[in-house]
């Protein structure tokens, strides 16, 4: 069973839900797929061991062979290569590592090397495994790291993915193969607007879903009304409690101090399991 905790909007409490749910379940695997800003480890107060570097192929140009014909630049869909009469410029940040330039070069002047774009880290706390992908600062491509970090938990039985915010590439890659998407939102107009976008994506991908309202009570009832109209179940509510916000600010999972929430988390998990079983 793979549970993706996503949200559309950032800062709604995805990591809070993912971490507290994982700690409540005790025996499971938590995968931090928010590789631009991985935060799960902060709340688990653990140091991570590096498992591997994520590297991507990158072209290397042999300028002794290059005739500056410009075919590679014409081919590159990402404008990563520019060729002038006696000069070739390569923009590493734009390269998607498709390998096309190496295939097509008529002079065999292009070979491939690799560059580091991030890393995969791991920690184990009792029966909880945590894997984290981490994008190198200044690198644009999050998706290859997400794909790689998910590989580690592929065969684990209960897996929680902490998804990145938004609805674009990194989220789609996190959601692929999930049995259920839990969409964390806040009961405000911003929260509702982004929830709708996220629901759209999840439905398009044909994944069962449930909503978790965080900071319940802070805004209005717009999210409740929307979920009712759309037939989406609200599987959990986390109240707008300053104690939770303060614990969060210090990197403390709230179930550690508010014991009653462990029970609420476990009950929600049972509901989450049933929704996933029922299918889309």
């Amino acid at each position, binding site marked *: 069973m793979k549970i993706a905790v996503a949200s559309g909007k950032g800062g709604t409490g995805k990591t809070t839900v993912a971490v507290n749910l994982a700690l409540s379940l005790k025996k499971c695997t938590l995968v931090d797929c928010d590789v631009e800003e991985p935060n799960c480890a902060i709340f688990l107060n653990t140091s991570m061991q590096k498992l591997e570097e994520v590297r991507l192929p990158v072209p290397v140009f042999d300028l002794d062979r290059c005739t500056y014909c410009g075919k590679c630049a014409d081919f590159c869909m990402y404008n990563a290569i520019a060729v002038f009469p006696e000069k070739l410029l390569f923009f590493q940040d734009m390269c998607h590592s498709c390998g096309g330039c190496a295939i097509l070069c008529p002079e065999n002047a292009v070979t491939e090397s690799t560059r580091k774009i991030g890393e995969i880290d791991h920690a184990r706390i009792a029966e909880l495994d945590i894997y984290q992908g981490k994008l190198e600062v200044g690198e644009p491509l999050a998706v290859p790291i997400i794909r790689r970090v998910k590989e580690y938990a592929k065969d684990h039985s209960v897996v929680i993915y902490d998804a990145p915010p938004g*609805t*674009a590439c990194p989220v789609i890659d996190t959601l692929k193969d999930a049995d259920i998407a839990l969409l964390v939102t806040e009961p405000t107009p*911003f929260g509702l607007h982004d929830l709708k976008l996220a629901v759209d994506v999840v439905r398009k991908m044909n994944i069962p879903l449930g909503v978790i309202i965080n900071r319940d009570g802070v805004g209005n009832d717009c999210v409740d009304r929307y979920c009712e109209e759309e037939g989406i179940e609200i599987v959990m509510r986390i109240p707008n409690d300053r104690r939770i916000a303060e614990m969060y600010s210090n990197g403390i999972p709230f179930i550690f101090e508010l014991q009653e929430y462990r029970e609420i988390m476990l009950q929600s998990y049972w509901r989450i399991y049933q929704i996933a079983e029922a299918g889309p």
Partner: protein
Amino acid sequence: MMEVTVISGKGGTGKTTLAAAFASLAQNAVLADCDVDAADLHLILDPLVEERRDFLGLKLAIKDEDKCIDCGRCLDHCRFSAISEDFEIIRDSCEGCAVCQLVCPEDAISMVDRISGEAFISSTRFGPMVHASLMAGEEASGKLVAMVREMARKVAKNSEKDLVLIDGPPGIGCPVIAAISGVSMVLVVTEPTLSGMHDLERVLGVAEHFKIPSAVIVNKADINEDNTNKIRTYCSERDVPFLGRLPYHDSATESMIKGQTLIEHVDNPLAPIIKDMWNKMEEILSE
């Protein structure tokens, strides 16, 4: 013409709320919502769309079934897992690189445009605004960010505006890099939480990497005074201007529900603090 991008590293720090407040303080600006994944600025600024343009994202490979001989070269060479075992193109995974077309011996693959979203030029009560929406599940948000910025610059030039104020995306990846490259300054909104501080460090690293001056604002500062002070110290050690701190206040949510900026929202203790931040930012920009 100056460009300033509001970013946050972490989502939910109040980036859009602040960008909207700044929009109502800016006298002669074009607004650009570059958080194209979860664009929210329009919920407060209520733009009237005057012009819309299709966004062509990545190209998409399509296959001519009659020509395909199932040789599998496309599958062997595709690095994006976008060709299935039975040699069909998986739309969601295709990054439009055209390698499959390059290696196909039968000329069975062609590359087509794919409409991945829309961009808009609108008018608001605070001046022109450029924004966009990405279709559900479509990729290339960095490219859409670049399109929004390009349109905003043109609008600014044509209407003689001296500032483009950009509401940026969260994170440090492709869309963020597209939203900050070449701007005059980034304003980083953070909150005094351990995760907020972790993300602040990373996002300042990105700004530094691209040699863009930055300044920091702490929102919800009173949630954790210790951490707020640490951020302040951290900024002075790094020589990053600290523009100020905003306390947690219900008016942020109340104004959002009313569709008002924090400057418009009546009897709001946050407004003077934001005005002060804005003045400090203008000072830095004029240096």
